[in-house]
């Protein structure tokens, strides 16, 4: 034992003011030093990484832009020149662009599709921006008025002097968007109802929901599409025919609804019991509680999962080309069979075009979901 005494008595006369953080940890240089060049091994990895990126990007730019053929009337434009292969054959995409967008929709009537797009975008944009007022009116216009308008415009109504365009003539991006958007718009509310049904205290509702969800989740989408196009007509009474496009449309919507239901259920389970009790103790009815308290929180929590399902649905629409519908993938593939454009780079170009188009829509959805998540984040906002 030493005689040394520790000084344990202490008291503060002044509280300390807050200080700024040390400067070397902030800014671009600080970030690079910390993340890219923190030691010699990480520095080597950084340079190897940069080299790999350079290889990929330079080859891509070479193919897609520098060596690309932008203009031409037929395959001669895109054939190898002097034994050297040319880059992307954009001339092919340009020549077929109208078909890729509209399928076999009559050219004289294509303004109807464009007008539908325009109205849809005009209604959608203010809906997506949270600060724009009149959300209720906007929602009614978008979800009730617009579908009717779109149906009349796209399918036609002789009484309005709009000649009918059979759905068999719809194709390309138009068909992809029709299937994807209908699927997205119907699968979310249906999925929410199914998720609530699965948690219901009423045994029949619960059982029906579980059977529905498990049936659609247990069947591959391709099977659903084949069933809808080949088997469904066999079960329908004589004389009753379902439109060739409506059939897969319903299949895709119900299929995604089952997935959506499970995503939403995940959100519902994450809501603490106290939220239900707080709402019930205030006298809210079941539907008020769900609509005002539980679902806003549950859906917000599963935005990534919901958008994931939307993106999956959007891309899965390309499967309808298997049952002979000319969606974007279907029409591009059938165009590849054209001998007039048969060159070594036609197919890669066409698939690149496809990939970029799908990516554009999916990336847009993904970015918007990130924006929404941040916007709705109130839990720990300081």
């Amino acid at each position, binding site marked *: 034992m030493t005689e040394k005494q520790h000084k344990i008595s202490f008291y503060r006369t002044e509280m300390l003011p807050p200080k700024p953080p040390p400067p070397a940890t902030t800014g671009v240089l600080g970030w690079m030093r910390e993340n890219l060049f923190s030691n010699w091994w990480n520095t080597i990895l950084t340079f190897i990484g940069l080299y790999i990126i350079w290889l990929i990007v330079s080859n891509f730019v070479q193919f897609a832009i520098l060596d690309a053929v932008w203009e031409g009337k037929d395959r001669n434009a895109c054939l190898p020149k002097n034994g050297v292969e040319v880059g992307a054959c954009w001339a092919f995409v340009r020549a077929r662009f109208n078909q890729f967008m509209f399928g076999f929709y009559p050219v004289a009537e294509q303004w109807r599709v464009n007008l539908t797009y325009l109205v849809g975008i005009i209604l959608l944009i203010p809906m997506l921006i949270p600060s724009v007022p009149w959300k209720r009116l906007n929602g009614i216009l978008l979800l009730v008025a617009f579908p009717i308008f779109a149906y009349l415009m796209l399918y036609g109504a002789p009484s309005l002097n709009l000649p009918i365009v059979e759905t068999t003539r719809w194709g390309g991006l138009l068909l992809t968007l029709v299937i994807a958007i209908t699927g997205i718009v119907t699968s979310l509310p249906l999925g929410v109802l199914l998720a609530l049904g699965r948690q219901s205290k009423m045994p029949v509702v619960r059982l029906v929901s579980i059977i529905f969800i498990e049936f659609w989740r247990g069947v591959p989408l391709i099977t659903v599409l084949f069933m809808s196009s080949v088997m469904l007509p066999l079960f329908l009474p004589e004389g009753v025919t379902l439109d060739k496009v409506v059939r897969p449309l319903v299949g895709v919507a119900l299929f995604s609804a089952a997935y959506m239901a499970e995503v939403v259920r995940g959100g519902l389970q994450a809501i603490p019991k*106290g939220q239900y009790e707080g709402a019930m*103790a205030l*006298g809210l009815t079941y539907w008020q509680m769900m609509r005002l308290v539980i679902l806003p929180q549950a859906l917000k929590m599963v935005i990534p999962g919901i958008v994931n399902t939307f993106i999956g649905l959007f891309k899965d629409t390309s499967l309808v080309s298997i049952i002979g519908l000319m969606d974007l993938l279907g029409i591009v593939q059938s165009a590849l069979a054209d001998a007039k454009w048969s060159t070594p780079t036609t197919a890669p170009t066409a698939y690149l075009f496809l990939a970029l188009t799908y990516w554009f829509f999916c990336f847009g959805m993904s970015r918007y979901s990130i924006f929404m998540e941040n916007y709705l984040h109130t839990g720990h906002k300081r």
Partner: protein
Amino acid sequence: MAENTAKKMEISDDVAIEMIDVNKWYGDFHVLRDINLTVYRGERIVICGPSGSGKSTMIRCINRLEEHQAGKIVVDGVELTEDVTKIEEIRREVGMVFQHFNLFPHLTVLENCTLAPIWVKRMPKKEAEEIAMHFLEKVKIPEQAHKYPGQLSGGQQQRVAIARSLCMSPKIMLFDEPTSALDPEMIKEVLDVMVDLAESGMTMLVVTHEMGFARQVANRVIFMDAGQIVEQNEPEEFFTNPKSDRTKLFLSQILH
């Protein structure tokens, strides 16, 4: 502790809550055993007891957050049955404050307070907001009205929760361990609000271990153990002269 006005308040002969032979089981576990309790209008009852004694379950039966399986509960003249409209009617008259506040984190403080008046009572938004601000002033946090619950301290959140219940102008208030989840420094601000409320003549059932609060405002203290009411008395008598051995043991554990 100053002798306060709350204690002197008149208690009417009107029955607010009547529980007759109430029994409840969780599976095989018998949580509430032959509960008989009559609460008169204007009464302030503190319920204490060890954890698992059924005190929370008992008050949660009053607004049907828990279902009793035998016996009869009559709240404000309405008997609690399977009938959903009756349950909703009772819930409109009975406010409840929870241990973990249960504020809605996606709504601002003001929206938390106006939600039920607007949707349940069909009150115009402006009127609901005026009432909400009135009660937020009563609980001394009107300046937080436009913040989200996540930005407030525990004590502030609990005061908002009290204001939220009061916005429905309930006839009866239930408190389920309202200060148990709070930091020591915040307990007083919540108890002060509850004392004010008691002085206004509200019928209150409070599950709590704050014995100072019980002495100050309660006109009756109930001790529960093993799903039964073991002892009840006026606070003075209850604390100084408990009759049952179980009560004596409990009080010796919590009063140092």
